[in-house]
């Protein structure tokens, strides 16, 4: 099929709004229709996320073929009305987010049934879909205040989802996240207010055009500072990460997977978007030395995240700290701000979503089958859950950055980008962190395959139950594991898109 650009704009039609409205509608339906049967909620969530994924894919193709798509809400022209913009940059992220949420939903049926009390499942899926709609809204909107509204929708549903964890610590995790998240969001809205005072507009494109004249105004600089700090809180950049480990550790498995794969990545995306398309590369590079600060912060995040992960005994917590390190990769690429490094940063949004989502899915499967979260108890699991553990090994290799996995692609672009920008001293940071990653992941792989069974696993031995996790969980996990290798070997497609997005961000 081939469409001309004009036909495609019309073909795109109201897709941008449908992407959000469909999960929203499903979220509203979920508590009602689930009265029919308890698994209806899951079917609804799967269908909705699948449709959203297809729509986001079609949007991405529209953008690749015909350039940026703009959708005017209620057909009011910006800057008066609210605008939805899909460019290379957010079209790519949107597709990634939609895809991962679809896979995780597909995976989650059994896990949700086990971990969430039955009468709460319909509401759980409702909150779950609201969360997804929220993050998609964040990605797609072109209006900075609308962005805040979606951030709050995501956050509110997130708090409820986290609190569903079985351990009572989940409640405190959720509460602390609520406090810090609200501080972050309020800082964001404060920054938006300052921007509004300085420019009189809320539309991102309009802001970009009106800001350069007043770059040296203290109001604009303060606005930028508050937005940055607010977002860094939300994306858990070290040392603003304190809410994250507990949230990932005590949430229900499916929520850990979803949040690890999407929420921090989306916030990183917003950071990039505001740094480069609301403000301009000139601003962040020349007017305020923010990239220099961000480079230092990212390096600290990369090293500290990996270092703390080394000492963890709970596997979910280990993965959480690993995420804190990996967030540093994304911000590092953005802070170097050359096209190659930025490509690395963007491709890492996809890659890390794949890897970390998959690893949390593996942990979810282990928890589902055995209830084990301590690394020590996982000894000998390799024989009992061979497929799940194979996926884990692939994920581990990818996190380390072996050259046939997606992890290597990210590292390749980040490192060559850093060297190309004359910052070769950043490469050792990346390499040291991958060695540390190798340490803490290989520790798990080794105990899973090369040790006898732990006492805990032996007690679970039973002739009547299969040892492997349910089919649906294993297949989706392996599918993502396969993608980790597939996109590690045939990376040209996503890299091409990421490269265009990077060029778009840097305004060249």
């Amino acid at each position, binding site marked *: 099929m081939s469409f001309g650009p004009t036909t495609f704009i019309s073909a795109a039609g109201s897709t941008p709004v449908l992407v959000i409205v469909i999960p929203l509608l499903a979220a509203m339906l979920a508590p009602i229709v689930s009265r029919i049967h308890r698994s209806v909620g899951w079917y609804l969530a799967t269908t909705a996320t699948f449709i959203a994924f297809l729509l986001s894919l079609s949007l991405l193709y529209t953008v690749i073929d015909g350039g940026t798509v703009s959708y005017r809400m209620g057909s009011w022209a910006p800057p008066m009305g609210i605008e939805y913009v899909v460019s290379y940059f957010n079209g790519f992220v949107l597709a990634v987010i939609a895809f991962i949420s679809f896979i995780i939903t597909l995976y989650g049926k059994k896990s949700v049934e*086990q971990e969430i009390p039955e009468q709460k499942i319909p509401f759980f899926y409702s909150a779950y879909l609201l969360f997804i709609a929220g993050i998609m809204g964040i990605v797609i909107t072109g209006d900075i205040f609308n962005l805040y509204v979606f951030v709050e929708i995501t956050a509110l549903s997130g708090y409820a989802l986290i609190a569903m964890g079985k351990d009572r610590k989940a409640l405190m995790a959720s509460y602390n996240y609520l406090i810090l998240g609200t501080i972050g969001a309020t800082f964001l809205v404060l920054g938006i207010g300052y921007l509004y005072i300085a420019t009189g507009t809320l539309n991102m494109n309009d802001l970009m055009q009106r800001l350069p004249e007043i770059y040296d105004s203290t109001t604009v600089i303060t606005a930028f500072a508050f937005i940055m700090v607010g977002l860094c809180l939300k994306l858990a950049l070290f040392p603003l990460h304190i809410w994250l480990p507990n949230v990932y550790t005590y949430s229900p498995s499916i929520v850990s997977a979803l949040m690890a794969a999407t929420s921090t990545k989306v916030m990183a995306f917003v950071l990039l978007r505001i740094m480069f398309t609301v403000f301009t590369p000139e601003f962040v590079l020349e007017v305020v030395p923010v990239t220099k600060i961000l480079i230092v912060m990212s390096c600290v995040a990369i090293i500290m995240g990996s270092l703390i992960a080394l000492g963890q005994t709970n596997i979910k917590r280990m993965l959480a700290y690993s995420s804190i390190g990996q967030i540093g990769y994304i911000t590092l690429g953005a802070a170097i701000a050359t096209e190659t490094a930025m490509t690395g940063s963007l491709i890492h949004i996809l890659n890390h979503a794949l890897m970390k989502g998959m690893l949390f899915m593996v942990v979810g499967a282990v928890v*589902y089958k055995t209830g084990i979260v301590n690394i020590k108890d996982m000894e000998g699991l390799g024989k009992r859950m061979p497929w799940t553990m194979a996926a884990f090994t692939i994920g581990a290799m990818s996190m380390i950055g072996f050259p046939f996995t997606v992890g290597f692609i990210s590292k390749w672009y980040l490192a060559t980008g850093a060297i190309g920008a004359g910052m070769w001293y950043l490469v050792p940071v990346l390499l040291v962190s991958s060695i540390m990653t190798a340490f803490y992941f290989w520790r798990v792989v080794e105990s899973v395959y090369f040790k006898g069974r732990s006492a805990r696993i032996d007690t679970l031995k039973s002739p009547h139950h299969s040892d492997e996790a349910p089919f649906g969980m294993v297949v989706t996990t392996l599918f993502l594991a396969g993608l980790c290798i597939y996109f590690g070997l045939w990376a040209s497609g996503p890299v091409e898109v990421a490269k265009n997005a990077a060029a778009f961000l840097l305004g060249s």
Partner: protein
Amino acid sequence: MIEIILGKYNYWIYIALMMIGFYAMIAKENLVKKILGMNIFQTGVILLYVSISKVSGGTVPIIWDKGGPYDNPLPHVLMLTAIVVSVSTTAVALALIVRIYKSYGTIEDDQIVVINSHDGDKEIPSEKASTII
């Protein structure tokens, strides 16, 4: 000097409110107090926005025959949303606090830390696992 202070009087007050609320959010140990602080924090921001909308000599932004200068309606709209967000967050937070009180018997942050430190890192209870045993 006095001009600066008086010319931006509303802004100084909003900064003061924000600081009070922000302090309560991060430094108070009582979970309900934190939420009180959060409310003050957010109304501070609302005060900022509404102050932006004011124009000297402006009237309520409702079009009548007078036709004089009207105040900026946009921040009002935004703040309606912000108030709703604020109360929604409060509701969720309070629901959480009720749950926390039920399982910990206290709503003091530092006390909960003490209780948690005695908890250890327990395994996630798994119904399936217990049936296998």
